[in-house]
Structure formats: structure tokens, C-alpha cells
């Protein structure tokens, strides 16, 4: 039924992506290991979000977007003709830069994905909702107001709610596009702790503009520049002894 079950490593070969005539990603090759945090860094407009979105095929929604290359999760080709895109996205969750809770109750937000995939029994849903909120360490803050609108929460709570909502789909991989850039330091700290906890069960790929954040939480770091993957290595290697001069210039803040 679910071809992605238990598959958590991502392998991309010769990825090229075009928005119309614009060559946005150039020959990207990367192996993202399972149950690790991998960070994408690089200046604005270098293609981090674009590459992240190829992994759950969100670029399919963009008109004029042409994608080449081989993309695999485990041994499953995610761009194969018979790939069930909805099943792929269930297994590869995504958290966006701007928290986007649905205008409905906290409970219904979390139950959205399980309901999408046919779970309707109340006891089962209750269990998933509680577990997901606990995994996103926000259960204690919202357990008394599950029926209240999710829009009444603070930005940091909303973002953790969105993480819980993704977790409710029981994903194997979680993609996060600058999940803390709109949050205060305390909320950011909570989400970073959360990622440390979550990577025991799933693979996390995070885009961040915050070098310290990448250094703190990522096991692997990839540096993108102008649509190319310049360097990809263990995080401490990237931050202490990068092989490429461009990487060094960027992480030491000497880049334009």
C-alpha cells in the first residue's frame, strides 16, 4: 500500500530544474542520510526552497516548472509515472516559513491528515491528536483548548501546531523551510530541541539562514550558491574546515 513505509534516506542524482527559461537548480547530486538533520544554507534566491520542494513534489503546482534528474526515497523513484503524489506527501511532511494553521479548531487541524487517509474513528483520532501534539511538545499548552480555533495561538505555538499537524500524517521525512525565521528566540529554541528529539524517528531536512542554528542542530550541511550545490559535508567540517573557498566566505559572513 505505502511504498515509502520505513524509507528515510533521500538520494538525488543530476537534478536540474527550470522555471520557464530560468535554470534554477544546476546538476545537484546529494545523498541525505536517514534519521539525521540536514541543513541547507546559502544566500537568498540560491534555490534552497526550490530544491526542498522537489522532494515532496510541491513544484508540481508551479506552472512552467520543468524538473530533470533521478530522485529516490529508499529505492522508490518519486517522479515515476505511477507514484501516488498524495502518498508521497503524506510520507514527506513539510513545514513552511510562515505558520499556516487552517482556520479550524486545533483538533481538526491535527486530524486533517489522518482523516484524509481514511481514519474516522473518534478514539483513533483522539489518540493520534494527542500523540502528535506531544511529539511537537505543545500538548500541555493546548490540551484544554483543543476545540478552540488554531488562529488564536501565538506564532510560535502555531508553528509547533503545524509541525504536529505534519507528524499526524506519520511521515518518514520532515522538510522544514526556515521554520523559525518568523519566531522569537524562545520559540526557536523549543523547535530546535524538538528537532533533536524527532530525528530519532525520522529524517529532517531544514533550510535556514541562521548559521548558528545550522551549526547547533544539523548533522550534515549543504551550501547552495546560484542554483548549485557548492559543498556538502558533516556540519563540523563545513563550519571548521570547508574545502571550498566560497563556502568559507559565506559562513564567515564575507559574502555579498
Amino acid at each position, binding site marked *: 500500500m505505502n511504498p515509502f513505509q520505513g524509507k528515510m534516506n533521500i538520494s538525488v542524482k543530476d537534478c536540474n530544474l527550470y522555471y520557464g527559461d530560468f535554470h534554477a537548480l544546476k546538476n545537484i547530486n546529494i545523498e541525505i542520510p536517514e534519521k539525521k538533520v540536514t541543513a541547507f544554507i546559502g544566500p537568498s534566491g540560491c534555490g534552497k526552497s526550490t530544491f526542498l520542494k522537489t522532494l*515532496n513534489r*510541491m513544484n508540481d*503546482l508551479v*506552472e512552467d516548472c520543468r524538473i530533470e534528474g533521478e530522485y529516490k526515497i529508499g529505492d522508490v523513484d518519486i517522479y515515476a509515472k505511477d507514484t501516488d503524489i*498524495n*502518498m*508521497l*506527501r*503524506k510520507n514527506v*511532511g*513539510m513545514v*513552511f516559513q*510562515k505558520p*499556516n494553521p*487552517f*482556520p*479550524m*479548531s486545533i483538533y481538526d487541524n491535527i486530524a*486533517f*491528515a489522518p482523516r*484524509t*487517509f481514511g481514519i474516522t474513528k473518534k478514539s483513533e483520532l483522539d489518540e493520534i491528536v494527542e500523540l502528535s501534539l506531544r511529539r511537537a511538545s505543545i500538548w500541555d499548552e493546548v490540551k484544554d483548548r483543543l476545540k*478552540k*480555533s*488554531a*488562529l*488564536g495561538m501565538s506564532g510560535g505555538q502555531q508553528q509547533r501546531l*503545524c509541525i504536529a*499537524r*505534519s507528524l499526524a*500524517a506519520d511521515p518518514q521525512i520532515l522538510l522544514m523551510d526556515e521554520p523559525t525565521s518568523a519566531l522569537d528566540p524562545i520559540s526557536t529554541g523549543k523547535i530546535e530541541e524538538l528537532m533533536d528529539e524527532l530525528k530519532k524517528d525520522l529524517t529532517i531536512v531544514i533550510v535556514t539562514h541562521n548559521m548558528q542554528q545550522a551549526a547547533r542542530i544539523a548533522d550534515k550541511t549543504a551550501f547552495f550558491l546560484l542554483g548549485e550545490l557548492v559543498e556538502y559535508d558533516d556540519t563540523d567540517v563545513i563550519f571548521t574546515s570547508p574545502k571550498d573557498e566560497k563556502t568559507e566566505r559565506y559562513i564567515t559572513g564575507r559574502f555579498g
Partner: protein
Amino acid sequence: MKNLNSAGNGNRKLFFALRIFCTVALGVSLLCLLAVVAYVLINGVTKISGDLLFGDYSVSPSILPAIIGTLQLVGISILIAVPIGVASAIFLVEYTNNKGRLMRVIQVATETLAGIPSIVYGLFGYLIFVVAFGWGYSMLGGGITLAIMILPTIVRSTQESLVAVQGGLREGAYALGASKVRTIFKIVLPSAAGGIVTAIILAIGRVVSESAVLILTIGMVVKDIPASLMSPGTSLALDIYYFASHGYPDEAAATAVVLLVFVICLNLLAGALGKIIKKSTGETK
């Protein structure tokens, strides 16, 4: 450097005059509105009676046939125009590229249609339903014509409500593995519901106040309650015209009050429902 305040100071007199002018203009328009409402109420309220509202027309003039006729017309036109209008808007916003050629053509078409005088719709309804279909004057023909008349507005306002739904919500739903249909029905439509409901109620207001279309399509038969949807009939707005032009000024004034109250209630309802829906989806804050 140029003193930024100098322009303002130099023209202070002009600004003052403008402000006075705007205040006066606002006063005049409010006064006109109040005058109309007050005039209708003062002249009409005392003329309302049980016989007028629910009596038998063969005994004394009654607007019961008009009340029933108006409800029928609202029912028919809304039942036809809302599903078609909302579905068209969903198709346009969710299934075609919002910036595409088709979209622009339809945009212009709906705007033009919304601007056509209603008597032209009436003539169309007359030629099609009364003459070509051979239905004669009928509530159904009138209701369908009204549906055609309000369709462009419903499409346009639904479109606007759908476009106003934040893109992030759609992305969020897709990213959770929801299909397009599920995303539209569970996320997009509920978020847009407030705007759509308001549009529908305002459309009902237009149906209730329309007269030109109905003179040509339902025949203004004020005395009989329509036996079926294929019968001729009347509406509140038509009754006002009929009473006023056939020597019943008091009845005309009373009917105007009923119609006015109805339209005011609809507008209040539109506002209230819009708010309630927004609240239930949690959009207040």
C-alpha cells in the same frame, strides 16, 4: 532641502474648503437616504393591516400573492444561480491559471453582464420563455431570468472570496497529502464561505427588489396566488407599481414598507452571517 510642510501650509484654505465640501456632501447623501426611508415608513406603516398582508384579494387588496410570489422567485433564482455560479468560480480560480486568457475573457464578460440594465434581461426572458418556449407568463420563466441576471455577480464575488484565501492554506493542505478536491472542499470553500454567503444574500436582495424583469416575464397578476410555477403571478416590487398606478396609493405605501423591511433584514442578515461564519472558522482576531 525643500520644506515638506510648506505645500500643506500654503493650501490650508483649499483643504479647509474641501473638507467643508465633503462634510456637506456626506450630510446631503445621508439626509436623502433618511428622507426616503422616513417617508416610506411614515406613509406606509399605518396602512399595513392583516387584510392587506394575508387577506383574500377577492374581498380587499392583499399582498399575499406577492409575498408567496417573491419567495418563489427567490427560491428558483437562488437554487439555479448559486450552484452554477459557485461552481463556475471554483473552476475559474482553482482549475485555470488565474492570469490566463480564458480568465480575462470571462472577467470582462461577467463585468459586462453585471452592467446590463435589467430590462434587457427582462426582454430576453420574455422572448425566450414567454414567446419561444410558449410558457406564457410564468413564475419559473421569471425565476430563471432572475437567475441569469444575478449569475455574473455571484461568480464575481465568489471568485474574489476564493482568491482572497491565503495561498499558504492550499499549500499546507497539499503538503499533507490532500487531493485537490479535498483541499477545495475542506479548506478553501470554508475559508471563503463568509464572502460567498454575503454575496448570496445580497443577490437575494436584488431579486426581491427587481421589477423590470418581472413585468415582462411573470405578468403582474396581482389577484391570484400562483397555482404552480408555470402560472403567472406577482411580486412585492410589482405590487407597488400596480397599486400606485391603479389608484391604491395607501396599499402601495404599505407594500413599500414590507419590501423595505425585508431588504433591510436581508442586509443585516448578510452582515451577521458573514461574521458568524468567520468566527466559526476562527478567522476573527
